[in-house]
């Protein structure tokens, strides 16, 4: 078994309204920042032990499918790295 950290990033699908991101963008603009667009995402860092990277990714993928993301509104991606 090897120690991995799986990072699951959950973001709204393109085209789904993100009022919190819009509000954040407006606040940044009020502070004088210039920006084109702002998108927000949730990031989960999951430490787990697995036989290999593939298995770690598969398990993190299932976590995203079952709970971390809502397929109606979200896309997600999974990145796996060995953990020191």
């Amino acid at each position, binding site marked *: 078994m090897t120690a991995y950290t799986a990072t699951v990033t959950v973001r709204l699908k393109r085209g*789904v*309204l993100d009022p*919190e991101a819009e509000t954040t963008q407006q606040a940044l603009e009020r502070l004088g920042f210039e920006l084109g667009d702002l998108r927000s995402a949730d990031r989960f860092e999951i430490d787990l032990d697995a036989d290999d990277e593939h298995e770690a990714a598969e398990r993190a993928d299932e976590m995203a499918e079952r*709970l971390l993301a*809502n397929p*109606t*509104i979200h896309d997600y991606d999974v990145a796996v790295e060995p953990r020191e």
Partner: protein
Amino acid sequence: MTVSVVRFGGSNCDRDAVRALEYLGVDADIVWHEDGLPADTEGVVVPGGFSYGDYLRAGAMAAQSPVMDEVRALADDGVPVLGVCNGAQIGCEAGMTPGAFTTNASARFQCERVHLRVENADTPWTAAYSEGDVLEVPIAHGEGRFEIGEDAYDDLVADDRVLFRYCDADGEVTDEANPNGSTGAVAGLTGDRDNVAVMMPHPERATLPELGATDGQGVLSAFA
């Protein structure tokens, strides 16, 4: 009929639901979710509130709790199940109804009275009304914007599963009358079968005459 009102940590409309049901002559008891549903449960309300502190997404945690497997099994047997507000979010997260309820377009928590147009009066939840009736019922939510994929929305409409749409006092569905930016101004819908329904507005807050509004009685009378 005995209705089980499922209480999670953070539910806060459970007692309101029991009082409203009892006013309509329906036996109702609060059931702590970890205790499971009593064997004599003949109806289920998943009430409003902030179960699990709305962590992750409103309703996401409660939807995964074991009691929801029991609720789903009863629903499959035809038992009436109603999710209100947080209960509606839980119902969608649990896959009992399609779509999702997410952050209001305003990005604000909104607590106000709204108007609803009855879209389909041929369900247990709307049998007390006529199609096109306009109800006045309160909302109180920050995450009530109904989102659903285009194809799934078309199916929902084609199958006549929209119960209520937000409208103005005259029954017109307009952008101005849509409090949260919901797709199709959908405020309530049924599952695959019409014994399961979810809605963001609170019928239990529009049932007791002393609260000044009674238009929600018809929804809860599905349990009578």
